[in-house]
């Protein structure tokens, strides 16, 4: 498959956005959707719709099979050992809340410590913060270095005998740093520490092999992975998912309900209470096929070339300051322009059809550390081209002109 033709598979790029061609550089926020995924949702609702796992009529059985089929595809895609290690959630946020909540209920005691990093997205901090109050848990942060990376040493020196969980992102949504998950897991497991990975930026852009990474949990956001919104995935090692208590109660997650006692269903039903995002799950199978057809190695190569080109272009542009310079970097390029607030940058770029994100990108801890209130961020997906960065640069020059910068 030719990477140049991939853009054609995304109908949004046929649209004019305020009379401009769309230059979409906001995939770290959410990716655009290929036609196969959009069509699958339509087809399911049009021809095949039923709820799953409840009724025994034809449509219900067929829908259940399709739903479970995606679970198997995800299992294969991330190389999980067991299909039942894949739990569908409403998003990566819910996946991380599930882990923090259930570990808090069953595994963590007063005074235990959780180690995060300064690069964490709020969704991998706030759920743990709840345990500060409810369980008197202490939260520590491994520091970034000057390049915006988290070297393994910075994790190691924050580990204490009380550290029970290390929760880290796989790929930073601000600096683009790729964290050494395998090394972190080796180190953590040698000390009996659980590793939880926020894989929101990792799963769409890196090769994911959860057995090789050996992490205990891995959270995925499907809408950042060319899939529908309202859907996330939690991978958890079977021993943990079996041992930990359910997260939400409701239909579908029980075995037996009596007036005086309730027993819970087996995996993965135990964690999938209520009617799930059925159409999204079924359509997500197409997202995985889409990624498999291109091949993750090709995606990695393409995005690496793009971001290297983007850095090269922006480095030549004086007044642009790129945030972080990690050796191992994914497709995220955050920057500031001296004298122009990121929101003004975003508004001016938008006028040219260039969609970026401005703000703290749900990483206030990191922005505080960098002593900036906000930054602008360009992030890539499979459909981006070098020309997108040329246009970004041109629009940045327009900003500079408006703000009278040299």
């Amino acid at each position, binding site marked *: 498959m030719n990477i140049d033709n991939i853009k054609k598979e995304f109908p949004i790029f046929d649209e004019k956005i305020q009379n401009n061609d769309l230059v979409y550089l906001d995939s770290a926020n959410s990716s655009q959707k290929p036609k196969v995924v959009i069509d699958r949702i339509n087809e399911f609702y049009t021809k095949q719709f039923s709820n799953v796992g409840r009724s025994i009529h034809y449509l219900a059985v067929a829908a259940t099979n399709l739903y479970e089929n995606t679970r198997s595809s995800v299992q294969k895609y991330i190389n999980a050992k067991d299909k039942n290690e894949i739990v569908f959630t409403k998003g990566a946020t819910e996946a991380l809340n599930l882990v923090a909540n259930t570990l808090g209920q069953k595994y963590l005691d007063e005074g235990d410590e959780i180690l995060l990093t300064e690069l964490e997205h709020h969704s991998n901090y706030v759920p743990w913060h709840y345990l500060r109050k409810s369980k008197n848990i202490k939260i520590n942060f491994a520091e970034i270095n000057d390049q915006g990376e988290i070297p393994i040493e910075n994790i190691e020196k924050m580990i204490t005998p009380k550290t029970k969980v290390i929760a880290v992102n796989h790929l930073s949504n601000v600096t683009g740093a790729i964290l050494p998950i395998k090394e972190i897991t080796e180190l953590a497991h040698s000390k009996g520490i659980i590793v939880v990975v926020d894989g929101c930026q990792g799963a769409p852009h890196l090769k994911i092999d959860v057995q090789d990474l050996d992490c205990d949990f891995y959270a995925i956001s499907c809408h950042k992975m060319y899939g529908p919104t309202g859907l996330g995935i939690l991978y958890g090692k079977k021993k943990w998912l079996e041992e930990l208590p359910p997260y939400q109660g409701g239909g579908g997650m029980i075995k037996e309900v009596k007036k005086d006692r309730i027993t819970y269903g087996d995996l993965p039903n135990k964690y999938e209470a209520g009617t799930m995002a059925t159409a999204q799950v079924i359509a997500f199978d197409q997202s995985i096929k889409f990624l498999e057809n291109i091949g993750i190695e090709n995606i990695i190569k393409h995005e690496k070339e793009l971001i290297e080109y983007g850095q090269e272009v922006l480095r030549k542009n004086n007044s642009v300051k790129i945030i972080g310079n990690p050796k191992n970097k994914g497709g995220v390029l955050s920057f500031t322009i001296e004298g122009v607030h990121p*929101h*003004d940058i975003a508004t001016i770029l938008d006028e040219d059809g260039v969609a970026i994100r401005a703000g703290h990108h749900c990483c206030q801890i990191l922005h505080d550390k960098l002593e900036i209130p906000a930054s602008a961020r360009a992030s890539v997906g499979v459909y981006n081209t070098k020309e997108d960065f040329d246009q970004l640069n041109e629009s940045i020059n327009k900003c500079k002109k408006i703000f009278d910068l040299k």
Partner: protein
Amino acid sequence: MNLKELYQEIILEHGKNPRNLGKTNNFNKDAKGNNPLCGDNVHVYLKLNDQRKVEDISFEGSGCAISMASASIMTDLIKGKSDNEAKEIIEDFLGMIKENPALKSNILKEDDKTKLMCLSGVKQYPMRVKCATLSWHTLVSAMENNGKEISTEE
């Protein structure tokens, strides 16, 4: 949409060199405001004297050109007004940003009204309206002195 209307000369100038920036020493009322979505924050300080007149007003904060210019112009225009006049100006400004095509109040002089109307460009940018109004809502909170922190997300 028109960037020239949004980033008028006067906005860029006030954004770059905001008036009344800093914490005035003799304030007796203040309030904080923030926009959690973008991290913008503002702290408005004012001295309301015994004659219910705004004797001094200033602000601290960081934000985009629109929010800094809006706070700067606001403090400039509110200084020296009675609390009732200030309230009328605030209401008039917020009404103009929200729906009215022009300012209605006659308290401000024509050239001051022109300054304020420079902020009307945000009406075409719904995501930026909050940038222009945050300091004004914060001023209301300070005047009412209820100590309530203003958030754009409530």
